[in-house]
């Protein structure tokens, strides 16, 4: 496949709320072509195929046969959950535990709200069934599976005409036998219904989290498989028969067939792409430690990449409150999943976030957003409340005549008026001061997000580079870096579509895990080795179906560990070397003590350490496309100078406020060009703001490298 010199083009398609972005990359020359079409929420597949067709129209030299593979990021699974449009699903569990999904964690999502609601279970109570059977915590049978009772439950499931079934029995992570027998009994009567067993999907302890993950898997499976089938069909109709891959929440891709069986791994498909793009760019530029920052119209997302790998979490809720500070407590809102998800902190700060003054006289930004409709006041589409975009416009950071590359003009006067009336007058400030305050307050929340993914996880921001993209990211990035103590910023080429590129620079990844729960001083190391071997075999089998991956699979091993008695595990990479022996275990244990000290400030060397889960990721390598160098090289940036305009920079001008600043056209900046802040760099889909005391060097590939003056 990959060695065929003809099939050298790869296509990435990322469906967002407003636009569907397509990216076509020539993997040899690095030439990138992008397309943007309106998303079609009623039938996302048609927006998908329009984006693909537009790419092929833009580059007439590419024929459908030249496509090596197509990678897709989609929110179809998340949307089904958030909109309550999941498939009709049955849930089967151990007798006595039918209400596991109803009871959930028994807590309220907000402490002081007497009118709160618990999220409605994805399976209504009449479709939750019990089977007499029981295992103990060691996986031994306490009560045998009652086949007669099971047969009756199967008949009731048949009568209820469900599209999917989820099975989660107590302690099945230790012993899958009962679940497998139940699965077979249902499959015998309902061969076309999707059945998810918790021991297959996430064989890890804590029943509610495992059940929730399994239920989500089955409840979105019919929707995801239908959707992927329809995309495949449309690609075939366009004569594209190459492999379709899907982005997972973890940042790896997997074949469409695997996605149809295990869709819970792709619920956060879209946001992962941005982190992957930042990781890939950092690695290519010799900066494997980066913080990815993606700011769009309604939210901003931050994630941390170390050694070229995005940080991964398994503490995540779909449709929950995703905001700074709730990471450890986000339990009661949304539906938890225990699959690997790129560890993002997402906050409600985007270009459309609304600024207001509260009853105590404080200036606030968000959480309400004007969204795309009516949008910021300056769009002139009926928005009345000032937003971050309005504030940036008033400060001179955006050009009213060059928004969306001049396709849309912004109304500065109405933006000024809205900020004056809503914020400046109530606070006794000038309009510029208020606009500046709006931006600074939004920045504070975003700096918190950057701190949460770095300092809070034990990483010093000074060791990282900030990679900023999304429509609004580059306007804020330099100031955020200044406040968060990050010395370098990188703005990639085409920041507005940068995350779609992330689809084309990752590998096939298949996750496998096994629960151990054994103390390090009591474990038989041969058990670790045999469990890893078992996971490796399953990984090889899964790897075979991914046509785009080349060569032998690679394996990443990690062990989730904690002090015996704790409840939160830290993931510790397996020491290098293939032999698993006592020395390996000692090294692993020492790594754990170190990781614990980094995260929580202490190590308890005398305490027993517990090995909770083994994780093995099978990686099928996909070759990276080359990056294309700019044709023009010159250290002088004046060729790109468009003019000058006054820009408000109170934070760094010694109180002067407005500074006359040069404005550059990014498309004309040559490689090697150097320029100093204050400056504005414009391109059709976004504006980069360079603050005083920062300087820019354009690299060979056209990325803006921004550093603080020494």
């Amino acid at each position, binding site marked *: 496949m990959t060695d065929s010199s003809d099939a050298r083009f790869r296509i990435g398609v990322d469906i967002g709320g407003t636009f569907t972005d397509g990216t076509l990359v020539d993997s040899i020359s690095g030439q990138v072509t992008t397309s943007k079409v309106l998303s079609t929420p009623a039938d996302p597949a048609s927006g998908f195929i329009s984006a693909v067709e537009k790419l092929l129209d833009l580059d007439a030299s590419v024929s459908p046969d030249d496509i090596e593979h197509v990678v897709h990021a989609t929110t179809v699974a998340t949307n089904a959950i958030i909109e309550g449009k999941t498939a009709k699903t049955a849930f089967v569990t151990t007798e006595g535990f039918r*209400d596991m999904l109803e*009871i959930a964690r028994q807590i309220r999502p907000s402490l002081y709200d*007497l009118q*709160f609601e618990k999220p409605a279970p994805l399976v209504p*109570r009449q479709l939750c069934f019990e089977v007499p059977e029981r295992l*103990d915590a060691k996986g031994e049978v306490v009560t045998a599976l009652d086949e007669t009772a099971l047969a009756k439950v199967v008949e009731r499931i048949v009568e209820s005409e469900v599209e999917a079934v989820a099975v989660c029995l107590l302690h099945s992570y230790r012993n899958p036998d009962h679940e497998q027998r139940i699965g077979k009994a249902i499959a015998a009567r309902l061969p076309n219904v999707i059945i998810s067993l918790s021991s297959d999907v996430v064989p890890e302890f804590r029943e509610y989290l495992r059940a929730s993950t399994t239920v989500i898997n089955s409840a979105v499976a019919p929707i995801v498989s239908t959707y992927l089938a329809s995309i495949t069909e449309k690609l075939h109709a366009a004569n594209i028969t190459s492999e379709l891959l899907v982005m997972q929440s973890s940042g790896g891709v997997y074949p469409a067939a695997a996605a149809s069986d295990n869709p819970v791994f792709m619920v956060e498909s879209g946001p992962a792409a941005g982190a992957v793009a930042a990781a890939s760019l950092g690695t290519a530029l010799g900066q494997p430690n980066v913080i990815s920052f993606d700011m769009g119209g309604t939210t901003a997302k931050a994630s941390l990449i170390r050694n070229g790998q995005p940080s991964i979490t398994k503490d995540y809720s779909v449709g929950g409150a995703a905001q700074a500070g709730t990471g450890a407590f986000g339990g009661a809102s949304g539906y938890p999943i225990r699959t690997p998800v790129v560890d993002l902190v997402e906050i409600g700060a985007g270009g459309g976030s609304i600024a207001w003054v509260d009853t105590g006289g404080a*200036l606030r930004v968000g959480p309400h957003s004007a969204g795309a409709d009516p949008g910021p006041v300056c769009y002139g589409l009926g928005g009345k409340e000032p937003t971050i975009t309005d504030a940036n416009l008033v400060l001179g950071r955006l050009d009213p005549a060059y928004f969306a590359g001049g396709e849309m003009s912004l109304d500065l006067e109405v933006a000024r008026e809205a900020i004056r009336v809503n914020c400046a007058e109530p*606070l006794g400030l000038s309009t510029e001061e208020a606009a500046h305050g709006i931006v600074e307050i939004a920045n504070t929340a975003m700096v918190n997000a950057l701190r949460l993914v770095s300092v809070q996880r034990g990483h010093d921001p000074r060791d990282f580079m900030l990679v900023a993209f999304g429509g609004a990211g580059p306007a804020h990035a330099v100031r955020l870096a200044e406040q968060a103590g990050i010395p370098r910023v990188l703005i990639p080429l085409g920041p507005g579509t940068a995350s779609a590129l992330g689809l084309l620079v990752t590998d096939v990844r298949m996750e496998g895990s096994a629960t151990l729960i054994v103390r390090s001083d009591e474990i038989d190391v041969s058990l670790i080795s045999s469990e890893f071997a078992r996971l490796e075999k399953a990984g090889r089998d899964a790897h075979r179906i991914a046509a785009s991956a080349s060569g032998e699979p690679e394996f990443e091993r990690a062990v989730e560990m904690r002090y015996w*008695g704790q409840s939160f595990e830290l993931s510790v990479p397996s020491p290098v070397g293939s032999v698993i022996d006592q020395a390996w275990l000692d090294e692993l244990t020492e790594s754990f003590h170190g990781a614990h000290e980094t995260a929580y400030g202490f190590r308890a060397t005398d305490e027993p350490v517990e090995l909770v889960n083994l994780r093995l990721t099978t990686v099928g390598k996909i070759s990276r496309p080359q990056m294309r160098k700019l044709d023009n090289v010159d250290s002088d940036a004046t060729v790109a100078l468009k003019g000058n305009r006054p820009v408000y920079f109170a934070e760094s001008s010694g109180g002067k406020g407005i500074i006359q600043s040069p404005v550059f056209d990014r498309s004309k900046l040559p490689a090697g060009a150097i320029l100093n802040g204050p400056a504005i760099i414009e391109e059709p889909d976004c504006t980069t703001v360079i603050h005083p005391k920062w300087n820019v060097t354009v690299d060979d590939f056209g990325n803006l490298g921004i550093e603080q003056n020494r």
Partner: protein
Amino acid sequence: MTIAAVDPIKFEVIRNALTQAAEEMAIALRRSAYSTNVKTRQDFSCAFFDKDLRSVSQAFTQPVHLGSFVRHVPIAVNRYGPENLGPGDMILSNDPYGGGVHLNDISLIGPVYWQAQLVGYTACLAHHVDVGGGAPASIGAFREVFQEGIIIPPIKFVIEDELDDDLFRLVLSQIRSKRETAGDFRAQIASNRTGALRINEIIDRYGLDEFDRYINEIIEYTDRRTRAEVAKLPRGVFSAKGFIDNDGFTDEVVKLEVKITIDDEGVRFDTTGSDPQRRAPVNSTFAQTYSACAYALRALMDRDLPVNDGFYRYVHVEAPEGSVTNCVHPAPVVGGWETHVRLNDLIFEALAPAMPDAICAGTKAMQCHSGFGGENPETGEYYCFLETLAGGYGGRSASDGPDAVQTHGQNTENAPVEETESNYPVRITRYELVPDSEGPGEFRGGLGLRRDYMFPEEATFTILADRDKAGPRGLFDGERGSKSVYALIKNNEEEHLSSKTTVQLQPGDVISYRTSGGGGYGPPFKRDPEAVLTDVLQGKISQKRARERYGVEIDLDDQSVNDSATQELRIGK
């Protein structure tokens, strides 16, 4: 209403940074803790206090700590003497008669220094699973506080960054679950250090003068917003009275009374009329009662309102000394939460006529502890386990009370069955909703839940709960939720137990909790028949109960409401 002479931007930035510091303390504590009660059930809180011991920013997982923790910290520091606390020192305290609540809640408090100047205090409170005393998990019916566990007055526990090993061993010697408790103490130290580091970073950036000035401003800002919220409350005097089923030694009910006066000065809660304290576990310290009132007021205000000294200024509590709402030494206190949480229900009941859309009908409103321990045959260690069980929430003016959820001051998670069974010699054999336990209403109460514990080994089990004589009250013709049941099942024979008792279990014995449902809101015969149909189809309410309590005839074959039969049932109702 403007902020004169302060930079509104710097204000918001510092305010967020202070909140963030408290939240990072909470994350550090939870993730590195050992006991299920802290790490999973989140029974802890963290806060930053300024150098004058005013509460500034807080990260609370449990509203019960809202008023108690902020009272305890200043009292403990003043008792010890702020001048006796240097950099790297931390004091430990759990004294109920020194501003605390019950002995399990142990606070660790450390001064924060910036360039050798005292700038404030970080403090965290954790509910420790065991503090010694008469029964595992330190809950039970006792006569005096001395029987409830180790009493720790403010003592220096960490001296110049080093844990005092002698004291540490002394404290641990009183405690059954030594390993977990030691781990939780280490997590508390980590939490305070995290907070101190963040506070130092804020001062590094803005300077100490600005830091102090903006803390004042943050408190004044909260004062202004609280005043604006109080202005929206109805003016007048509102009262209610109610009962706790028994005190744990006698079957005599415990009377509680509350009178609420709302005027421009704030809100005054007066518990005069409540019973004298008992030589039994139901006594609430002043801090606990204060906390109940602070929570109730906070729940009636804008959800976005910050809580600090500027808020507490508006909470005025008068609780007669020597009563169950303000007990004096040496009354036992471990069940004081029953009084605390019942006061919440009473406060909302009192305000119901004036604020019918803001409140809810009677909730579970009991702490509902389950605690047990014994020797773990796998490890040979003495183990202790503690959890609290959810119940039904009360109906609201436009929505049903949610099923099986923690209420009011309590928001602790359940312990996963698989985690519990992996760590302790117990098997949970049933965990489910209790059908027909709701209080009928136009908007019904939530269902209670059932949890059965089977013990393969001998164990000591304590129930510390309530509600087995009368279920939570309904409002506006809504009816009471079901009563709770606490049962011992031996050889398939069920014996009902008192709501406050300790029992010795033999291998194979089962303890079964069935918690109360929430009270209904509005007349049940006005309930939308389609909503009744959904409840019946889901098996939450029986067909018979639908007919008798709601006047709705459900046709099970058709899965529909029988309209004509329903009309007939509802005639004259």
